[in-house]
């Protein structure tokens, strides 16, 4: 049995390699907000209140392009709706927590943190304080995200654009799913999702980000039926 502290530390360690992409992305995100002419305090408020990288950038870009707040808010909701899927997966391991703890821990559910904690949960189902791993990944991501966006806001885009550091985002997610390429069913699901996301990329409200996972999960359910 690992202690709470050990699990928390393990979460921090498991997520730290992803800071290679989270930190540059956060700096870019903060700098874009200021570049587009928004109030720096509001740009930072997004990191605290929304706390969702890609959706923050879309929010800024839509508003600066003259979209209404309603459209911008709706787009954030649609982009972030993928968290419903993460929550459905994580609920298996968080079931026993009190309602208040569930409410608090939910704030820290982010893509990379979900991915790494879910991997850990699958291998260590019997641990009593499993959720401390998720708190470890979530807090690390949170702190780094706040510092990175703040530095972007204050210092501007001091990361040269030519470096193309936005490319670290797809790379970080490649690192997350790459081991599942060993399983044919997962490969089929991934390709379905990837191709759908390109096909529906221009769909309104950035809905490709939730439409393609739904298509891919439908294919997954068909595959499960075939397996039987």
């Amino acid at each position, binding site marked *: 049995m690992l202690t709470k502290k050990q699990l928390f530390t393990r979460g921090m360690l498991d997520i730290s390699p992803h800071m290679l992409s989270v930190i540059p992305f956060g700096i870019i995100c903060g700098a874009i907000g200021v570049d587009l002419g928004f109030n720096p305090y509001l740009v930072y408020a997004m990191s605290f209140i929304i706390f969702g990288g890609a959706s923050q950038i879309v929010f800024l870009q839509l508003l600066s392009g003259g979209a209404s*707040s309603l459209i911008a808010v709706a787009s954030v909701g649609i982009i972030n709706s993928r968290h419903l*899927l993460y929550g459905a997966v994580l609920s298996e391991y968080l079931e026993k927590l009190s309602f208040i703890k*569930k409410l608090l821990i939910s704030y820290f559910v982010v893509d990379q943190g979900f991915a790494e904690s879910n991997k850990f949960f699958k291998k260590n189902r019997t641990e009593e304080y499993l959720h401390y791993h998720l708190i470890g990944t979530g807090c690390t991501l949170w702190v780094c995200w706040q510092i990175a966006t703040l530095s972007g806001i204050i210092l501007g885009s001091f990361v040269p654009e030519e470096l193309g550091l936005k490319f670290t985002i797809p790379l970080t997610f490649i690192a997350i799913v790459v081991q599942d390429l060993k399983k044919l069913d997962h490969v089929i699901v991934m390709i379905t999702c990837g191709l759908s996301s390109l096909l529906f990329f221009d769909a309104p409200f950035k809905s490709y980000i939730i439409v393609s996972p739904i298509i891919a999960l439908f294919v*997954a359910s068909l595959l499960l039926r075939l397996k039987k």
Partner: protein
Amino acid sequence: MTLASIIFAGILTYFTRMTMIALISRDLLGDKIKAVLEYVPSAVFPAIIFPGIFINDYGAFIEMNDPKIFGALVAVIVGYFSKNIIATISAGLVSYWFLIFVVFN
């Protein structure tokens, strides 16, 4: 951009995170759905990966000889064999840089 719009977006985002963890009981999900949930990472992350590689900043498809495709392939190969996140990201990035700064320059 107003603080109110950010707060609305934040509340909406928080609900996407919290609903399935705190509001919906797991017993409501059938066994079939639970089995399909096993595929969530493979079904979600490619929707971030593919556009990040194949679509440029202006929303258009990239050329087939774009350095990002090469960088992504290197990352997949290095990641598959090394099982190491830092190695995967660095290998992809460095090979991408090699193409844009050395080869195509």
